[in-house]
């Protein structure tokens, strides 16, 4: 596999999936004459054709540089990325129940430990300062609405 071959195949697959999605878009009687499908059809065509050109050109290219994602050669990188994504999604889910302060603190502790491993004291401090300062700036000074969650009745401001 080369970069262009990977990109081209990815594009063709995504383009076809998108095209199938476009056929599933409901068309209403009223509205405009062009309809909600025309533009997506055009977009699917652009993606599939450019993906196809990439594949065709790559197969005829004289010199082909191999490309790998590095899942096996650099697993730590991908595990870190996965961990950040999982933490981020969990942060979003926990925000309303735990409240901004607690959820942000926990999230930051997680992110810091991933990147700045083994320095627990420093990480706890960064997480605490980050969540408190941002809360004060946004919720108190700028009066934006942030979920208060568990601390709802305890917070003095």
């Amino acid at each position: 596999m080369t970069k262009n071959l990977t990109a081209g195949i990815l594009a063709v697959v995504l383009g076809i999936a998108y095209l199938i999605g476009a056929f599933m878009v409901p068309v209403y009687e009223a509205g405009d004459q062009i309809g909600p499908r025309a533009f997506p059809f055009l977009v699917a065509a652009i993606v599939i054709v450019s993906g196809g050109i990439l594949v065709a050109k790559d197969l005829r290219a004289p010199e082909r540089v191999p490309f790998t994602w590095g899942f096996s050669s650099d697993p730590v990188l991908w595990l870190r990325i996965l961990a950040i994504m999982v933490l981020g999604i969990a942060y979003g889910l926990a925000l309303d129940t735990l409240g901004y302060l607690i959820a942000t603190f926990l999230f930051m502790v997680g992110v810091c430990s991933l990147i700045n491993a083994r320095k627990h004291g420093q990480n706890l401090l960064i997480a605490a300062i980050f969540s408190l300062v941002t809360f004060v700036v946004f919720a108190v000074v700028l009066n934006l609405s942030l979920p208060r969650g568990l601390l709802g009745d305890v917070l003095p401001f």
Partner: protein
Amino acid sequence: MNRISRALGGAVLATAVAASPLAAFAKDWEPQRPIEIIAPAGPGGGWDLLARTIQKTLTEEKLVSRPIIVSNKPGGGGATGWNYLKGKEGQGEFLAATSPLLIQNNLLGKSELTYKSFTPIAALMTEWEVVAVRADAPWKDGKSFFEALKAKPESMHIGVGPALGNDDHIQFLTLTKAFGGDPKAVKFVVYPATAAEQIPALLGGHIQAITISLGETLEQVKAGKLRLLGVSSPQRENEIPDVPTWKEQGIDFVFPHWRGLIAAPGLSAEQKAYWDKTLAKMVETPTWKKALENLQWELFYQNSEQHAAFLAEQTELMSSTLKDVGLAK
């Protein structure tokens, strides 16, 4: 500063309530925590302005004992904010701004929510709808315009925004039908940015007419750039004494573009009574009247009971119009 004094006010009241445990058992309900008014849209739009005007009036006129927070929850044509409200069952401290879109989104199949998912609280203000053409256009009234439309629908493009199926669109469909045309034949051009795109498009001659709320056109009308063919109010409006109502033009059509408040589902009679009492007082205050005048809104007050009945009646009306053109099933 403001915040601190509000918080202090809240604290003082909390102590007062705690000091007299009987108050909790009294028949009247009072908010027990900060009041949250949800604007189910970003800052700057009609819902946001309404929520902030209510916040300002209730606070400045000291009609409520708790601080008021306005929270913007845009998304899903209001659905995000309204769904948030729906989760607050039985809590009378949460209110959300609403408009006919609550009805229309459901009829158009965009949302499961109807007014029945909530406790209707009040209608508060309205704007009226107009049809506007360029000042140099050949049509002087509704009749001549809609007859031209009937004769050659493909040469008449009508600007509407932000999406089909809203009040502006429904007004035009109803008028087309009432003047004897075919609503399905009308060529609508949709402008998601509403007046910001509709008015330049009309002034630039790219479309022939727009269907829109009155306030958006007033400055252009005063400057002599636009002409209004009719207005959906019951009587002529003060700012535009020369523009006849649709009623005067022989069409039985009075159509408010109102906004109001809903609360979470399952509010008790006491909670409803509290808001009926508070909002009835609010709409009589000078702060509220001045704000409406500045925003060029008209008072359109209905209490919770009247508003519930009104919502049922409006749902019927819109459902039949949208079914006629195939937008609703």
